Structures are given as structure tokens and as C-alpha cells.
């Protein structure tokens, strides 16, 4: 079997998409790793549903403060120009279109960019959290995830079988084997992981991908 990219490399590839001045909300899991990989010279502003804007590094050991957390429950370090606000304001920012990019994990992404990331039907219950608001409100939704689930099934599907988070919301999918863009006619393969051909990626993917010239190797 070919090597798949690790979580850090996926996050590094996503980080390349973030522009100077972007306001970004990172979901839990792989998305939360992106903040480590912002190139010097770029200013990216992080937002969290816990009611904070412009946070930076995590708190050092011994300096954790239970009143300074992000939406993943990680302890944040105080930073100049950081601000705090209510949940209604935090989501006014999200729903009102003031977040440039959100990076979310996914259980399934469909051919038309539908996102399912909040509930595994077999569990019978799930956590919506802020995902539906982010999926519908952020100007750009990037999914960062493993390409296949634990059983090897494609998480990129023709139609989501899991309960939806939001329809037609995903712009870009970055996985451990490929970078795929959601376009009007479907899913277009942009980049393959080193050592992977477009046919290899297609073999792991339920949706028939669009190949145009210029498919590149993963670039960081």
C-alpha cells in the first residue's frame, strides 16, 4: 500500500490556502493543527465559538487558565489584541459572513459539496455544536480529513448517507491522498500525494473525479 500523508502534512497543506488578514475558525481534530503552519509574514486571525478572536499559541504548562479556552477546550495564552464576546456575538460573526475561512473535519462529503460531520447514525445521537453555523456562514469551507474511513470506504460519496450538516457548502477537500476542489460540475482533482497517481486516488474515491490537465503533486 502507498504511503498516506500524516495529519500534520494535511494541516500544512490547508494552511497554504489561508491568506494574509483572513479570519479563520478551525474545527477540532486535523483542522486545529493548521495554526502551527502559517508562513511568516502572513497574519491570520483565529476565531473560536468559545467567544474569542485573535488567539495565538496555547498556554504553557503551569499557566493554564480555565477562563481562557478555545472551542476544543484547549487552554490559550493571552495575546495582545485578543477580544472576548458572548456566544450570540460569536455566532453573529459566523452567520453574518465575517469569517473568511473555516476548516472542518468530515464524516462524508458529497459530489455537490454537501457536508456530513455531526452524527454517526449507528450511535443514535450526536453533537451539532457550531458546525452547522460555520458550514453555512463562513465565506469558504475547507474540509480536512482522511480520505477513507476505518473500513477503507470512501468518505467522498455521491450522496451523503449520514445526516447532513449543510448542503453545497464545501469549497475544497484536503485529504491524506489528494486535494479536491468542488466545482459546478462535481469534484475536480487538483493534487495527489507523492507517489499517488490520479488513477490511484480515483480507486479510493466513490465519486467519479474530474481530471483536467495540471494535476500536480501535493505542494506545501
Amino acid at each position, binding site marked *: 500500500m502507498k504511503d498516506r500523508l500524516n495529519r500534520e502534512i494535511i494541516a500544512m497543506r490547508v494552511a497554504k490556502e489561508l491568506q494574509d488578514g483572513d479570519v479563520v475558525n478551525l474545527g*477540532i481534530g486535523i483542522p486545529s493543527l493548521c495554526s502551527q503552519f502559517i508562513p511568516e509574514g502572513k497574519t491570520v486571525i483565529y476565531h*473560536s*465559538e*468559545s*467567544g*474569542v478572536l485573535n488567539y495565538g499559541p496555547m498556554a504553557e504548562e503551569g499557566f*493554564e*487558565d*480555565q*477562563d*481562557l*479556552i*478555545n*472551542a476544543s*477546550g484547549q*487552554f*490559550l495564552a493571552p495575546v495582545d489584541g485578543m477580544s*472576548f*464576546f*458572548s*456566544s*450570540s456575538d*460569536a*455566532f*453573529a460573526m*459566523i*452567520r453574518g459572513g465575517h469569517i473568511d475561512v473555516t476548516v472542518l473535519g468530515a464524516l462524508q462529503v458529497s459530489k455537490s459539496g454537501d457536508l456530513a460531520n455531526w452524527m454517526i447514525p449507528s*450511535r*443514535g*445521537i*450526536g*453533537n*451539532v*455544536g*457550531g*458546525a*452547522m*453555523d460555520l458550514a*453555512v*456562514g463562513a465565506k469558504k469551507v475547507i474540509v480536512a480529513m482522511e480520505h477513507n474511513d476505518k473500513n477503507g470506504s470512501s468518505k467522498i460519496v455521491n450522496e451523503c448517507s449520514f*445526516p*447532513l*450538516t*449543510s*448542503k453545497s457548502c464545501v469549497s475544497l477537500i484536503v485529504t491524506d491522498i489528494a486535494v479536491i476542489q468542488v466545482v459546478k460540475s462535481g469534484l475536480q482533482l487538483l493534487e495527489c500525494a507523492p507517489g499517488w497517481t490520479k488513477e490511484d486516488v480515483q480507486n479510493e474515491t466513490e465519486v467519479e473525479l474530474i481530471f483536467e490537465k495540471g494535476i500536480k503533486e501535493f505542494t506545501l
Partner: protein
Amino acid sequence: MNKVFNSFDEAVSDIPDNSTLMIDGFAGPGGTSQNLIAALRNLGSKNLTIISNTAGLASVIGFGTLPGQTPVDIGVLVENNQVKKVIASFPVSPSPSRPTAFEKAYAKHEVELELVPQGTLAERIRAGGAGIPAFFTPTGVDTRVSEGKEIREFNGKKYVLETALKADFALIRAYQSDRLGNLVYKGTSKNFNSVMVTAATISIVEVDKIVETGAIESALIDTPLLYVDRIVEIKENNER
């Protein structure tokens, strides 16, 4: 006009069975009114409807919890069979091997759940406090959470009609209060707290410290006094 109560027990003593409560906090112990929750557990009121972001998470997975601490959260009310229904956005544990008390009770059909996206939850609570009975939001359209609700298009985009949430009581943690009830929260402990305090008939607030009026600079006041009915100071020998 005295809002100061001497004990948590006294401050919650009139919460009857069948009440609807808003309980604060994002998910961790920071910003969660742990002392008031414990007092409500001791009081034992039954058939409660709880509106909260989680249904008790920190106590099972240690979300936002400093090493060595064991936070009190809604889980203790669920375990004590006081809860009829929970309205929340994040009711279950992200770790299936460490389920919340709520999940276990839910599996046994002992408690009901209304699952609400987090932004819709916050906005419904704000609406309750602001005299707005209903509003349209794009969140949840074409998903399970909008099933059975009115969908309407504005400028070519679909929105779902959501209604306000109000409560009989809100249990709120803040950092400081002055004697009039003006509140300050610390950092990220403002999130649900500063909204819920506006949407309950009676808002009960536990604070690290009650200070003289004027000791909190006007520009630092997060919640103006008119939203606060009862204040209890957390005494030094209390660990939470």
C-alpha cells in the same frame, strides 16, 4: 433593593419542580456555576428542563479542566434523576467509551433531548431576552434540525424560522459583581453566560467577589444590573 444572598442553598431554594433553567458555561468548568448546580442538586427539584450548551461534559472527559480537578456540571442533576429534558447543542461525549450521564439516561429513555445548533441556541436565548419571539436563520436548512419548521426564502436563499427560548431561572457564573448587580466575566467565560442572564425571569449569579458599586469601572461592565436578581459570593473555603 438587596440582591446579595448569603448562601447558594438560599439563592436556589425556591426553584420548584417542573422549572425551566438556563445553565451557563461553554463546556468546561470555566464559566460554569458549579456551586449553584451543586445547591440545586441538594435541593432536589424534579422534572427540570435544562437549556445549556452541553448536557455535562467536563465531568466525564475533562474538557477545559485543569489537572486534578473534578468539575461539577449538569451531569449531577441527570444522575440524580432531576432532569426531564435537555435543550443543547453538544449533549454527548466525543469519546464513546466515556459517555455522559445524559447519554446513558437518554439511551434508557429517561430524558428527552432537543438538539439545537450552537449559534441557533445562542440566538434563541438572546431573542428570549430581547423580546423577539422568532427569527429566520440559514443554519440547519435542509438538515434534521429544521424538520417540521417553516422554511422561507429571502433574496433567493433558504432560511428556517426558529423561536425564542426563555427560562424561569438562570444559573450564572461571573467573575465580579458590584452591589447593584453589574457583572464582569473573565475571558472566554462570557459566552453563554452573558446571554442566558438576559433570558430568565430570575437570574442567580455566583461570583468570585462582590465589590462596592463603583469598584468596577463603567467601561468594564459586561452585564448591566437590570439582568441580575440574586448574587452569591463564592467563599474562600469553597474550592470551586
